[in-house]
């Protein structure tokens, strides 16, 4: 029995030692795991915050994109509609000018246009071009401008005159079309303001 008892004692001793070691290992592992968990918690929170903040940023970005492009689309449609309105007003006004009565004040207008044109060109020896409708009015006005003669060629315009120096080097376009074209940006603004835009 004696040798067996020694063996059992030894086995018990080894078992107890191993048990102690295992328990210690388990305890250490548990502590390590706890530590790892504790350490990863702030990282997790940081990661979570970053995901939320990135998500919010992205959402803001998309919101800006959607709102920005929709606003722009609406504004652009408004601009096109406004332009359509302005064009209609313009073409109606041009029609009225084209069909305006050529008597009365109109001859004064032609006189002014001729006077202005010859002054700007700085020569009196000029050829005057006008449309078929205005030929008579211009012809009678030319009596006041010595050296000026009316061309037999007519031009296509609403009214007014084109003056060319006789040597052909200088031309001054004083037709109603050109004057309207020159003032078009200002007239557009006026018309737009009647539509309640640009005030």
């Amino acid at each position, binding site marked *: 029995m004696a040798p067996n008892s020694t063996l059992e004692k030894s086995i018990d001793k080894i078992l107890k030692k191993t048990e102690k070691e295992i328990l210690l290992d388990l305890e250490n592992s548990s502590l390590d795991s706890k530590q790892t968990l504790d350490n990863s918690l702030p990282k997790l929170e940081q990661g979570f915050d970053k995901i939320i903040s990135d998500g919010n940023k992205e959402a803001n970005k998309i919101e800006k994109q959607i709102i920005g492009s929709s606003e722009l689309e609406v504004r652009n449609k408004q601009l096109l509609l406004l332009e359509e309105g302005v064009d209609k007003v313009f073409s109606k006004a041009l029609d009225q000018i084209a069909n305006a009565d050529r008597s009365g004040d109109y001859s004064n207008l032609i006189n002014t246009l001729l006077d202005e044109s010859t002054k700007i060109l700085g020569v009196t020896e000029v050829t005057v071009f006008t449309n078929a409708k205005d030929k008579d009015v211009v012809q009678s006005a030319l009596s006041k401008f010595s050296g000026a003669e009316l061309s037999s060629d007519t031009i296509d315009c609403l009214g007014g005159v084109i003056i060319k120096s006789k040597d052909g080097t200088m*031309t001054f376009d*004083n037709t109603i079309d050109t004057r309207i074209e020159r003032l078009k940006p200002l007239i557009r603004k006026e018309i737009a303001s009647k539509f309640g835009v640009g005030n």
Partner: protein
Amino acid sequence: MTTEGGVQYSKIAEIKGPLVVVDDVENAAFDELVEIETNEGERRLGKVLEVGNGKAIVQVFEGTTGLSISGTNAKFVGKVMEMPVSKEVLGRVFDGLGRPKDGLPDPIADKFVDINGEPMNPEQREYPKDFIQTGVSVIDGLMTLVRGQKLPIFSGSGMSHNLLAAQIARQASVVGTQDDFAVVFAAIGVQYSEAEYFRRSLEDSGALKRSVLFLNTADDPAIERIITPRVALTVAEYLAFDLGIHVLVVMTDMTNYAEALREISAAREEVPGRKGYPGYLYTDLSTIYERAGKLQGRKGSVTQVPILSMPSDDITHPIPDLTGYITEGQVVVGRDLFRQGIYPPINILMSLSRLMKDGIGEGSTREDHSEVANQVYDAYSRAQEVRALAGIVGKAGLTEIDLKYMDVGDVFEKEFLSQATDENRTIEETLGILWKIVSQLPKNEITKIKDKFVDQYYKGK
């Protein structure tokens, strides 16, 4: 604007490069707008460069290709070139001469403004001191842009300056105020794909509604490039000083502008200066750059970020050289960083914002901004020295502190400098990363920051 038109002259004496010489001209004025009519009735715009002895030299913006001496007429319009301006220009895309390019009609003008602008009265100028956040860490943190400043970006061919330009245009904002902010973007002689990128980039980000784009592409006549920055700045000045908006003007590429200037100068047979550029290049550039600023009693401001690509990356080239004399600092894009794939590849050691000190700190960005920026600048400079040393003696020959500085250099480039093209960092985030870099160093190496800030923000062990 007057009802009076101009005289049309048909005696063209000579066509030379982008210039047309008109004979027997009376009463033409310097800078007067000229309409050139071709044989086929096509109209091109130009302006008078010189008058005298019955001759006028006209610079044709859209080029003289296809013009012939006979049959070409020059109409002197009787006014200088003007740009119609109104708030409606926001969200619009124009060509290099200020004509709509987006299929929409001309804007209904509030007024017509001479594109050459009026010089700001120096007495009325207000010193720039308010921060503009670009959302790009390296600019906001280390070379801060302030409202009314002119801060050029010096780059080289093929580098990512256009990506950076578009990113700044998309992201720039004024923080801590409800003031309106707008971006005027002038693309000068860029490729079609780049112009489209700028347009799409602003459209997709929703930033187009607060932007105005002027696109002069590489295939547009070079002479138009003389006008593009001027029309852009005219709109910017109107938005800033008439409507009280803070305006950031991004102009890329100013080198193309200078090339156009050289082309005209050569055609006029002027005595060339350095590298063939005209002797008045400095004066001419200043008429553009000096249009940045703030005025007393006016709410808005014009801030400029001109971008220029340095031929052969040569910073002593006349264009960056003369630009540097006029502007208030420079942001230099580095070839080495670009080759490493870093975006934005800004070489901070060669870059500087001279007005940064006035636009940062308590009340603008944060009280520790200046000191942490100085510390990082210093540390990165040291990191570069250590890297050079490691190239000779190897890493094994470095001290522990040298290795720390190498780490600082790496963290700086990977986390601070590198940024996605669509990443918009707030100034708080930028300062946070700067502190992360500083925290790589032991506390005793931090010599440029007050202890109270170190106690508050230092994250090292």
